[in-house]
């Protein structure tokens, strides 16, 4: 099984990704996560303005077979949530790095990203 792990994103061992472009940080779950979950049928998202610390549970993704907490890769305030997932949770299966994103953040401290896994390091972790 080979998974899509785009370069330039940062990852957590718990299979979340974070992508920072032009100062906006977008967070989602990886291809590995969506594959392990199977058919995603429900997503519980935080509200705009909610504040989370790195490592905090901020969303829940449910497939037919499992319930999975999703963890924050970095501290910050939620500036947008992906409302499209409420009606089409399967976007997480179809495009985990695209239309299946979960939230956007305003980061407290961009330096926190340095402690996260690179695409290469994440790919090594999931092979172990």
């Amino acid at each position, binding site marked *: 099984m080979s998974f899509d792990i785009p370069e330039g994103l940062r990852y957590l061992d718990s299979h979340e990704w974070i992508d920072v472009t032009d100062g906006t940080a977008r967070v989602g779950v990886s291809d590995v996560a969506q594959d392990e979950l199977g*058919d995603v*049928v429900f997503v519980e998202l935080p509200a705009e303005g909610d504040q989370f610390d790195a490592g905090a549970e901020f969303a829940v993704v449910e497939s037919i077979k499992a319930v999975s907490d999703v963890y924050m890769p970095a501290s910050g305030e939620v500036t947008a949530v992906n409302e499209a997932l409420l009606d089409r949770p399967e976007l997480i299966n179809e495009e985990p790095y695209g239309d299946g994103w979960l939230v956007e953040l305003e980061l407290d401290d961009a330096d926190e990203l340095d402690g996260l896994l690179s695409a290469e390091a994440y790919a090594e972790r999931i092979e172990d």
Partner: protein
Amino acid sequence: MPVEFDSIRGEHQRVREAAGKFDVSHMGQIEVTGPDAAALLQRLTTNDVAALDPGEAQYAAITDEEGIMLEDTVVYRLPDGETYLFVPNAGNDAAMADRCRWIRSAFDLDAEIDNTTTDWAMIAVQGPDAPARYETVTDSRYTLDRFEIERATIAGVDCLVAATGYTGEDGFEILTPWAEATGVWDAFDVQPCGLGARDTLRLEMGLLLSGQDFDPDEQPRTPYEAGIGFVVDLDTAFVGRDALEAAREAGVEETLCGVELLDRGVLRHGHTVTTPDDEEIGHVTSGTMSPTLGVSIGLAYVDNEYAEPDETVRVIVRDEPKKARIRATPFLDR
């Protein structure tokens, strides 16, 4: 059996619309023969074993002296008329064989008890196309009615074929010798399905899962509470009969009901059920997202007062009360 081969949703849909196959060899098989074979199973199970003609099967519960369900099972009287075979749930075969031996000794019965779980593989082929598929792998026509069993040669292998299943669809379950199982499995060119689809299919029909919807330790329930009072024949002398007669007269306090979630979310085992005024009235034992209906459905033990179709309730999901309603089962017309 894996949880899924492709995707639970896809496998589920194939079974509802065409056909799928399941390797259910984890189910047990206990065979009982001898002059008192029928008498032994009559003591063991709640249904009327004496009503079975050769080649017939029936659903039944196995209860303890207090009428608490230890198992649900299907009892088959094989076409020879001499052999009875019942199918305990996964991992319970040794305990059920011991229970048979205990009944044999307690009631001084003349019967032979064989735990043949490792002799038999079991393959379920289910779906509206299953009968037509049968005729592609055997010379005989498919003439079985529900809960009938016959001998058949499938892909050259002598098997037992029973019109039973766990999906609500037409179809059958095949008992085949372990060593020949691969050939029988491969003979059916239909979607292989896993435990995930098995669970969503049975839940849409409101069928019980042992160890979850009832369990002698975690979820001790009578067949009446579990909604399968129709398998209890109080005119037969089974272990637990007197307790169940008393339970029936007293009436149940909680009944297993279908629940449909009206708000977004997914019902899961363990969720609390309340009234709209936050009064606790029950618990969810099984829940999922129904692939056919596109809504979350489940089974819950609910106070009898509220266990009526269309009653509006709440289910507490991660501390949030969500709107739900009680539903009659099965959730699908079949």
